[in-house]
């Protein structure tokens, strides 16, 4: 039963070959066991259902679903990995989750994450780090690390995550699964506890490309509750392509450079490690065998994406997180003092170190006298990056890069150095700033750990993108079963 993908399980249930309740119970027992194991488990979850929600006859046939903690789920803890929202049970459900539930997905568990989605390792969770099922001394990536590890370990069939600068694609890559960040606006943000609203995007973390398409199909669409949401021009189809004949694939030199030996380069740490590059080059060769043409392209402003991102995202976060003030929900401290003391004590006690850092950074960047130099400039850099992509897509159909510069790193390796942690997003942030869809699929191993291939396309190219990813997935034949626990 565990071998079935979500799409296969839904088909088996519809054909009467599999009982939805039995499937739910098998996964529920696995998820609950991980939660009960505490530090001896992977710590993928912040909540696991006691029983299956009322089943509905529907396309997803009751297949269980893991949902990142930051999605509001009515009556179910939704804490965004933060002490300031510990035990918070929202009075309503996020649109992305309710759409999937209406399509027949059954909420099985809430998954661990970096606090308020700020991080690339899931070590910033107030509820402890999640471990990588391929190697428990390593991180699963982040911020959707609980979702990625749970899917890779076979504790849930599939899971919902969010991506602001790489938070779906990077953990998918580090856990050897598929992760898709859709076009900005194509999935409603209503009920997602906000990090950076101009970038936040919900998307699937799945075992294969077909499952990613199936989940996306039942999530997308304009939602009156999210003014930035957009209706995609066509329905999402399940992928079927087996060849890439005539397809033009672009490889940007700026995002695929090797790391310079031992700090000799001026951009130390911004290169791609050798084993990752090797797996990436093999995937390119495979694409050519399938009929694609590979050519070099330029994204001249991409090297500035990380800088712009680390102005824009903290600035928006500092504004979004102003709502956590101890008044309406969540933690309150310092009640003995005056109102100002209550605010500042509550926020001191409730937020973790990385969240405080980003609130401070964002507040500084938006403060009087610095706004134009930081936020204003970063918004203009963002325009240049989007223009780079538009120019590239006049020449090629898709852009390919490694998803991450390295494979999964050791727990604790980067927690003391915020900049080193931020560099994990070097290859994923440019697509986030441009609002375009990008998928990570596993393309091989380096040091025995999974390597992700990122494929990015123009806005609303999801159907073609999923087709290309599917053809490569078939050809690459990646085996993720080593991560099952």
């Amino acid at each position, binding site marked *: 039963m565990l071998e079935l993908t979500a799409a296969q399980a839904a088909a088996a249930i519809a054909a009467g070959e599999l009982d939805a309740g039995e499937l739910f119970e098998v996964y529920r027992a696995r998820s609950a066991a991980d939660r009960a194991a505490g530090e001896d488990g992977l710590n993928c979850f912040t909540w696991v259902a006691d029983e299956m929600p009322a089943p509905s006859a529907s396309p997803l046939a009751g297949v269980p679903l893991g949902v990142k903690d930051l999605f509001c789920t009515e009556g179910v803890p939704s804490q965004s990995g933060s002490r300031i929202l510990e035990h918070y049970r929202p009075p309503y459900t996020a649109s992305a989750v309710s759409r999937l539930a209406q399509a027949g997905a059954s909420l099985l568990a809430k998954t661990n994450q970096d606090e308020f989605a700020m991080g690339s390792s899931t070590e910033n969770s107030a509820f402890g780090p999640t471990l990588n099922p391929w190697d428990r001394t390593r991180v699963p990536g982040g911020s959707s690390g609980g979702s990625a590890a749970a899917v890779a370990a076979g504790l849930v069939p599939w899971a919902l995550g969010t991506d602001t600068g790489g938070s779906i694609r990077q953990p998918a890559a580090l856990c050897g699964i598929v992760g898709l960040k859709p076009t900005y606006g194509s999935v409603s943000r209503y009920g997602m506890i906000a990090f950076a609203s101009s970038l936040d995007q919900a998307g699937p973390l799945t075992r294969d490309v077909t499952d990613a398409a199936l989940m996306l199909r039942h999530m997308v669409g304009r939602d009156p509750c999210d003014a930035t949401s957009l209706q995609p021009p066509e329905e999402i189809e399940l992928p079927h392509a087996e060849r890439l004949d005539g397809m033009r694939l672009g490889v940007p030199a700026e995002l695929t450079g090797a790391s310079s030996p031992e700090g000799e380069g001026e951009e130390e740490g911004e290169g791609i490690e050798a084993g990752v590059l090797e797996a990436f080059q093999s995937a390119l060769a495979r694409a050519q065998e399938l009929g694609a043409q590979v050519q070099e392209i330029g994204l001249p402003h991409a090297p500035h994406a990380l800088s712009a991102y680390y102005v824009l995202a903290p600035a928006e976060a500092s504004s979004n997180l102003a709502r956590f003030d101890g008044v309406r929900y969540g933690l309150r401290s310092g009640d003995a003092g005056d109102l100002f003391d209550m605010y500042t004590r509550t926020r001191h006690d409730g937020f973790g170190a990385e969240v405080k850092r980003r609130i401070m950074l964002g507040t500084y960047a938006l403060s009087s006298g610095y706004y134009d130099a930081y936020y*204003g400039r970063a918004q203009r850099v963002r325009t240049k990056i989007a223009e780079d992509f538009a120019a590239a897509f006049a020449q090629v159909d898709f852009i390919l890069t490694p998803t991450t510069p390295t494979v999964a790193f050791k727990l604790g390796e980067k927690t003391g150095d915020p900049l080193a942690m931020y560099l994990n997003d070097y290859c994923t942030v440019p697509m986030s700033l441009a609002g375009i869809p990008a998928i990570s699929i596993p393309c091989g191993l380096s040091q025995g750990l999974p390597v992700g291939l990122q494929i990015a396309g123009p806005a609303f190219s999801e159907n073609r993108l999923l087709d290309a990813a599917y053809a490569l997935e078939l050809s690459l034949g990646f085996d993720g079963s080593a991560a099952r626990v």
Partner: protein
Amino acid sequence: MRATVIGREEVLQVAQLARLALAEEEIEPMARELSAVLDHVAKIAELDLDGVAPTSHVVASSLASPSGDDASPEGEGEVTGALRPDEPRPSLAREVALAQAPAVSDGGFLVPSPQA
């Protein structure tokens, strides 16, 4: 741009704006870490951005630009006028809205006095 260095006083001033209390031992590391990140992001000061418009809605604005025509679905370049009509409609019941509050009084949120 020269390396941006934020000192203790500036950290405390920003923390005040952010309504964030910092313990004494948090101040110096915060100054150091913020300086490192600001030094890194200062690279964007080197770019020539004269005449470049800032991004608002990234997808809608790229669809509206001439170079983005390939991807343009019908009628999707329009996200202006996003405010809904200001008409009363049902929302959360008062007791539901108050259910998670740390302190409640007389059907409202209870907070300490601004000048205790």
